[in-house]
């Protein structure tokens, strides 16, 4: 396993986590995009060292990179693509409703918390 990859995965995860704890939906969205990258990279890295592209008429099976995690990573990319777009639509809706894209707190929770004091 390569430290460069681990560094990228760790770095993207850190920045991603930092961003998804923000109040602004755009930032949260960015955060998930980065976390998605980190996860995809982790999947890819879990399959072992790099190699030739897994296309049989171009390389021998001994040279190629493990194709399974590539397939998984591809599925993961597509799914996180879809969900990022959905988040975007939510942020857009929030913007239509309230003019900004800030995540609000749950009012009922606040009401109950206030009831205790």
């Amino acid at each position, binding site marked *: *396993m390569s430290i460069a990859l681990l560094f990228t995965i760790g770095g993207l995860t850190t920045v991603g986590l930092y961003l*998804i704890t923000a109040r602004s*939906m755009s930032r*949260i969205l960015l955060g*998930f995009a980065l*976390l*998605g990258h*980190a*996860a*995809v990279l*982790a*999947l890819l*890295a*879990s*399959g072992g060292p790099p190699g030739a592209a897994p296309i049989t008429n171009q390389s021998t099976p001994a040279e190629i990179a493990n194709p*399974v*995690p590539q397939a*998984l990573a591809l*599925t*993961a990319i597509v*799914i*996180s693509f*879809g*969900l990022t777009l*959905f*988040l975007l639509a*939510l942020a857009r*809706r*929030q913007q239509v*409703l*309230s003019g900004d894209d800030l*995540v*609000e707190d*749950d*009012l*009922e*929770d606040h009401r*109950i918390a206030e009831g205790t004091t």
Partner: protein
Amino acid sequence: MNLLVTTTVIAPILAAAAALLLRAHPKSRDVVTIVGIGLATLASYAMLIDVNANGSQTVRVGGWAPELGIVLVADLFAVLVLPIALSIILVVEIFAIGQRRTAWGANPELAGPLLGVLTGGVSLAILTGDLFTLFVAFELILVSSYVLLTHQGQRDQIRSGMTYVVMNLLASTLFLFGVAFVYAATGTINLALLAERIPELDSGVRLGIGAWFFVVFGTKAAVFPLFSWLPDSYPTAPTTITAVFAGLLTKIGIYSMIRFHTLTGMDELGPIMLVIAGITMVVGALGALAQSDIKRILSFHVISQIGYMLMGLGLFSAAGTTGAILFLLHHMPVKTVLFLVGGLIENHEGTSSLSRSGGLAARKPVIAVLFAIPALSLAGLPPFSGFVAKFAVISAGIDESAVAIVVVALFAGILTLLSMTKIWLGVFWGTDADGLEAVPTAANNRRLMFAATGLAVAGTLTISFFAGSVFDLSQRAAEELRSSDAYITTVTEGAQE
């Protein structure tokens, strides 16, 4: 079996697509949805009969060997949970058709198709013998639930939807990381092969994987301290949607946990699971007590009850796993019914707030009866299924001399009972505090809602009545799970092309 498995997964998705194409024709749209989900449900019962008679079976999707392709495994655990899960969706869809023209109805153009997708996802999650396919199935379930939760676009729905989406997306990301860890450590994502290879790992990595997936599935299942998203999001959805969510989604989390953690032999995590289980039970029940809205109380109950299932699993004994499975089977329909009754109450009271309703038992005794049965069951009172389930879990605890968790479980039971009386006193007794009118509902729609709820109550009573058989089946399923050999053999040898 091949046909049955395919039907449960694909038929609802096909129906969803068809219903979407037919969005302009309400009648045929509803029929198509019901037929799709209904076929899947029928197929799942047929699977239960088949597996009960002939043992676990595997379908190799596309005919590929387990090392290369995806397998769907119909073992006893899966075919026990699946029929109940699908029946729930079917009943809720019927209720939703009845409720659609009311203020609390989901948009019927979307609810049907989305429930179809959800059904496909649930079937896939339950049947899959592949960790990554489980991820995909989770995403199917989640994405349809995201849309169901937010499609009406009201402000609190967007807010709660955001909480729900963000927390679950993070859990999904953690799931992907987990797949990466597992694949890096074992070179496979097939559950049967994992059952062989994970126990061979160094204990640090093995327990790390176990703990990581405990967090992943724990978030879906809403255990302490990962449950906060649930009570904030569920109550804002239309009642029918909440009913499905509460009845099913967290249970898929606990289902996956039972499967994964027993198959891979994570017994060392037992103590920590028990601690989490205890806290979850109590905090959930306290949360329920603090609320003053039916849907929020019921949402917190979901959390509390998950604690009991986790307790069964955390005991890591045959009796404990049996109890967890039994609890799971009991809880799914009972919770759904309670939310459906919540929907009926909303319809008649014009609100789900306790302080604004009252005296419904006198005005509408049918609703009181429909509520009382599942409520007593949830509180664990005999002779209902909840009693048997709780009894099974607690007596398993006594067998293992886990005194502390047994005491906590009993204590949480009292709190649950208290919170149920809170609803009862607030809604059914007393006088109607304000003049909110019942939501005008066409008579045949109302009949449909009552019929669906009545059907579901009858279902829970059936489970109560046949609790003996359900227990025996759960016991066999638990034994199969605990000796992972059975599962491995099914997948590697018992393949059906």
